[in-house]
């Protein structure tokens, strides 16, 4: 395709560039960037939705109130169901995670916008927060007994050390897979759309094909945006169960 288009340069990764919002200066740790802008928009959208939605306090909810209540009960039931009653106190934490990720993912699908969740730095922080919470809460709740989750007591004794090693490795791989799953999905979707958009720019009439493909992928990405937020949250619940719930091995 690129040969046929001659001087076509498709740089699907360019959209993920982080640059200072004002001026050209070097990027320090506090410089407001395009990512900061979209993080801010995410915060504003969540705040407006949650504040307006929770303001009427009607017994029979209106539309916005229904959305917030749906979000609330959805996450609440998920936490109760997966983590158990003990994990219910982590509900606000998971609510923040889910609302942030789903809003950021969906806002990122607005053409020309920026998806903070497409950056491994962001998802890594989210995943590390979960990892640290699970580890600290686990040791706080169960003491040294938390290590019992690596010792598969239902397996034959000979296999247990090997399984313990595997479990240990998988435990430390968790934050990696947790963060790359989300970041990679969002990044890949955006990059693919950018590639197709590049084709559409140089193919003349035939560009109807990549445009149709973009429409289809956009629909898929809407699904991915919600599903990945859901997956991230429910995995957090599952990890939290290790820390607070009964041993399930």
């Amino acid at each position, binding site marked *: 395709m690129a040969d046929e288009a001659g001087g076509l*340069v*498709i*740089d699907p*990764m*360019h*959209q*993920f*560039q*982080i*640059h200072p919002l004002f001026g050209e200066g070097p*990027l*320090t*740790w*506090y*410089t*407001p*960037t395009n*990512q*900061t802008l979209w*993080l*801010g928009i*995410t*915060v504003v959208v*969540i*705040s407006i939705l*949650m*504040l307006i*939605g*929770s*303001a009427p*306090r*009607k*017994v029979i*909810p209106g539309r916005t*109130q229904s959305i*917030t*209540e749906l979000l*609330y*009960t959805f996450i609440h039931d998920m936490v109760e169901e997966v983590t158990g009653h003990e994990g219910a106190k982590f509900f*606000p*934490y998971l*609510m*923040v995670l889910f*609302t*942030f990720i789903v809003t950021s993912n969906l806002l990122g699908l607005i053409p*020309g916008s920026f998806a*903070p969740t*497409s*950056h*491994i*730095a*962001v998802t890594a*922080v*989210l995943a590390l927060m979960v990892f640290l919470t699970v580890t600290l809460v686990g040791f706080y709740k169960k003491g040294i007994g938390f290590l019992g989750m690596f010792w598969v007591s239902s397996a034959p004794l000979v296999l247990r050390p090997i399984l313990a090693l595997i479990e240990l490795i998988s435990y430390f791989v968790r934050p990696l897979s947790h963060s790359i799953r989300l*970041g990679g999905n969002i*990044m890949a979707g955006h990059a693919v759309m*950018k590639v197709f*958009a*590049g084709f559409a*720019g140089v193919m003349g009439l035939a560009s109807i094909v990549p445009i149709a493909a973009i429409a289809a992928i956009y629909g898929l990405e809407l699904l991915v945006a919600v599903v990945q937020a859901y997956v991230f949250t429910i995995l957090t619940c599952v990890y939290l169960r290790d820390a607070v719930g009964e041993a399930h091995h």
Partner: protein
Amino acid sequence: MSTTETVAGAAGEASQKGMPQLNFATWPNQVFWLLVALVIIYIVLTKIAMPRIASVLAEREGRISGDLAAAEELKSKAKAAEKAYNLALEQARVEAGKIILATKAEIQKDLNAAMADADAQISAKAAESEKRIAEIRAGAVQAVSEVARETAGALVVALGGTADDAAIEAAVAARLKG
């Protein structure tokens, strides 16, 4: 952000070739602003939105369970009312049966009395009539014998005989018996 400015972008950010995600120079900035955003969202959610939603949901739950309890109570009341109604109906039916029986018996009594009365009246009238008939019959027999005597006397006289009252009497009596 469009593809057309890639040249300028590539020139300006030559040091950032490759995945922007792996440009670790931007990480402190990203982490800082992410934490700021998360803290704000956390405060907005936990301090304002979630307590409100929780209270609304609790209120709704209370309202629903209250309504359900009220409905349950009303249902049991309705059942009790139905039971009472059925009981009253049953009682009324029994009562009605009793009244019917009593009325029937009373009517029968009245009827019997009236029949007896009528019977008595009928028999009295019949006896009276019989007497009258007997009287009339006796009167008639007497009148016949008188007429016969007079006629016989007149006939005897007309035939040139002398009417002997005693003989005529005897003859008439004999004939009447015959």
